[in-house]
């Protein structure tokens, strides 16, 4: 009975969480639709959340591209298909690793920052103060962060794609003596414009996940500094899990068997 009880409770919690996120999404969407947007704050958030994430995105994607190339190039040359390495790196980067790794890294940096900032505003009654002034916390805090993520995550993803392919090209050249011309030719053959667009569609979904989970965790913070810590950890863990799951679903839908 205890087990059933627990399963039941967990299901209710999960549904409640999903409901909360959906409501927040609906409210945010409604403010955006009515153009009730704080532009300057949104631009500030683009800087804090996006521009300041560039360096970690570049670092992680550079080494990812390099390692894919390292693993595939030496073997490919052994089998006499060295000319396919560029394709392999580009394919993996643009369709999967670029969008997903960027999202995961940004979830760690930005999702936590959003949750911690909003969470500490909850425990110091700043959110109540906003509400009491007739200012909706969703419009005031969530929408600028959501918009900033929607603008910046695709840009960061493009960065990641480029850097990852460039890193792969460099390793292919130095370790497997695959010329950059052959690498690029192969890459261009493997991926088309629509692959890049689909990768960016993924990053839009991830942007929504990071911003909304971070904000929701922050807004549902209870109980002082310890609560803020819990909310922050939760934001990172939950958004990363959701990114992995939705990445699979999106790959399935967008790329199907192709």
């Amino acid at each position: 009975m205890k087990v059933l009880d627990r399963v039941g409770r967990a299901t209710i919690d999960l549904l409640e969480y999903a409901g909360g996120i959906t409501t927040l999404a609906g409210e945010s969407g409604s403010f955006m639709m009515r153009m009730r947007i704080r532009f300057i704050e949104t631009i500030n958030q683009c800087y804090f959340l996006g521009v300041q994430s560039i360096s970690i995105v570049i670092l992680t994607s550079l080494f990812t591209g390099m390692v894919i190339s390292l693993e595939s190039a030496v073997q490919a040359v052994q089998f006499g298909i060295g000319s396919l390495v560029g394709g392999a790196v580009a394919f993996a980067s643009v369709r999967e690793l670029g969008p997903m790794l960027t999202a995961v890294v940004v979830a760690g940096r930005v999702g936590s920052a959003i949750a911690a900032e909003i969470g500490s505003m909850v425990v110091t009654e700043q959110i109540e103060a906003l509400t009491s002034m007739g200012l909706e916390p969703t419009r005031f805090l969530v929408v600028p962060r959501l918009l900033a993520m929607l603008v910046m995550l695709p840009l960061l993803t493009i960065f990641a794609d480029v850097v990852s392919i460039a890193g792969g090209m460099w390793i292919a050249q130095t370790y497997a003596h695959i010329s950059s011309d052959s690498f690029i030719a192969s890459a261009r053959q493997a991926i088309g414009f629509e692959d890049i667009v689909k990768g960016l569609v993924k990053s839009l979904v991830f942007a929504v996940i990071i911003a909304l989970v971070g904000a929701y965790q922050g807004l549902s913070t209870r109980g002082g500094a310890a609560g803020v810590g819990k909310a922050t950890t939760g934001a990172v863990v939950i958004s990363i899990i959701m990114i992995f799951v939705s990445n699979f679903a999106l790959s399935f839908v967008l790329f199907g068997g192709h």
Partner: protein
Amino acid sequence: MAAIVARLDGVSLQYGERVILRNCSLDIVEGAITCIIGLSGAGKSTILRLIDGLRRPDAGHVYLREHDICHMPERELNEIRRKVSLSFQFAALLDSLTVGENVALPLREHTRLHDDAIRKIVLDALESVGLGSTYDNMPSELSGGMLKRAGFARAIVTRPELVLYDEPTTGLDPIVTHLITDTIVRLRNKLNGTAVVISHDLQSIYMMADYVAMLFEGAIIAYGTVDEIRTSSNPLVQQFLEGSEVGPIPI
């Protein structure tokens, strides 16, 4: 008969198992300063939150003018809230904005005033609480008492019909306490506004209050003018005003 600006009608509220308010009723009379007294943790701040619609009661009704705000959608409530403001017990300034921007916020968001005009109003409000020089400071650079005064300035800057002050003078020096008490009275006189003040400071209550309400064990057990309360025969009220350890109030 003076009009009623805000009314709690048989309100009950609990946090988890803990009952905070039990069938509590209170009328806030227009143009008057109503002070709420009661033990620490009795639920005084909770009453202000109910009046401002930040909490919804488990049972009973809360009215602002003729509107029952208990089931009012947030968007509608926001319209009414512009005429009400709450000065928080712990200031609750936004720590991402300067003190000046904090006080300017309600004006920026709800009026079409020009930046220069807003700056002037904000400076006036800050000066009225002795904080003129902190306009460009961040809240983290202010002391607790200064924060509290900045929160006070933010609450009065829009000249709302109803201002809810949560312990506006607690922790302030006697001179500033006098200044704040004076400001509350002056605002009421000038704008015929209504004020609800939570305070533990009997001196300033006697100075400014038109009515005093005492909250005890979830309900208002005494209500009246300052004289009526001071001469009340209710042993609970007497013990509270005397600050005595012996009496019916359990410690």
